[in-house]
């Protein structure tokens, strides 16, 4: 503490260790919270086509089209250690060739302070629903789930499934008309 620089150095070091300590308290205070909420979803229109996937193999693959309703309230998830929610709607299904297929159809970033009460009607998907092959036609069990990845100020990055899912089936015939 005898010189100008040493005093500055010691104050800065002390302030930084206090900051690290506060951050840890913030992290620890939110570590065991339960982040699961309800979500209601429903599909409105479901069709399937068989067209070449030029972004991948160029072979004819099944391409599903659907519109969906989604209702959820995520306001309670935001606490002092949540910076952002990354919300995504996943379609999960089984095909003869693959034991597990997961395709994200839609996602949304909700920053802290933004509106977190969602009520969508007849929404289009954000990404194409390409199957890896021809497993969508007449597929009887496609499950839609809503999940969110919590981005904290500092801490863990959990991926959480909202409770509530929706299962639907694809039609047995390909749609050939343009939509």
């Amino acid at each position, binding site marked *: 503490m005898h*010189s100008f*620089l*040493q005093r500055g150095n010691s104050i800065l070091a002390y302030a930084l260790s206090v900051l690290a300590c506060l951050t840890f308290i913030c992290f620890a205070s939110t570590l065991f919270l339960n982040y699961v909420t309800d979500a209601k979803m429903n599909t409105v229109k479901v069709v399937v086509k068989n067209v070449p996937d030029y*972004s*991948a*193999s160029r072979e004819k693959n099944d391409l599903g089209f659907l519109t969906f309703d989604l209702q959820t309230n995520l306001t309670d998830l935001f606490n002092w250690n949540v*910076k*952002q929610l*990354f919300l*995504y709607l*996943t379609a999960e299904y089984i095909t003869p*060739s*693959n*034991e*597990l*297929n*997961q*395709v*994200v159809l839609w*996602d949304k*970033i909700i*920053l802290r302070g933004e509106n977190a009460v969602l009520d969508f009607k007849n929404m289009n998907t954000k*990404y194409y629903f*390409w199957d*890896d092959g021809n497993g969508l036609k007449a597929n009887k069990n496609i499950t839609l789930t809503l*999940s969110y*990845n919590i*981005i*904290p*100020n*500092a*801490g*863990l*990055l959990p*991926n959480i499934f909202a409770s509530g899912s929706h299962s639907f089936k694809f039609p047995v015939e390909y749609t050939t008309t343009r939509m």
Partner: protein
Amino acid sequence: MDVANLFDDVKRMNKRQFIYQVLSFGMIVSSALMIWKGLMVVTGSESPIVVVLSGSMEPAFHRGDLLFLTNYPEEPVRVGEIVVFKVEGRDIPIVHRVLKLHEKRNGTVKFLTKGDNNSVDDRGLYAPGQLWLTKDDVVGRARGFLPYVGMVTILMNEYPKFKYAVLACLGLYVLVHRE
């Protein structure tokens, strides 16, 4: 810290003290290495801590944020997770989110990633002709997040002179400073 003072300290040292200083310097370096290698074993990832170098995951991760990774083989990759992967022909690992995933019955997994802040998926970033990532490409899955701390490394990488100056100062300080 006075420059003259520094060399006073050196002059006052005898041989034994000097060797002691060198040993303690070696101790610091080797314990840092041990911690890093130990983390590699515990997390199963070849690089357990990474610094985010691009803005492609904004607003979740900004340049200079720190990510803690794990890569346990028994833990399956799932959609919505943030993976860090290496692409042939690129030195820097990429931090992006899994968008689509197909798992075969024999356990082989292929998946497609996308950055939250990018408008298209990552097929354009992969090696030419590569359509999917597999488990072998993955360096780790993001599990923990700490903001800003990696800024120092970014500064050091962008200004190599700064890096050498800092390293030289630290080394000199440890070697020369007497407790």
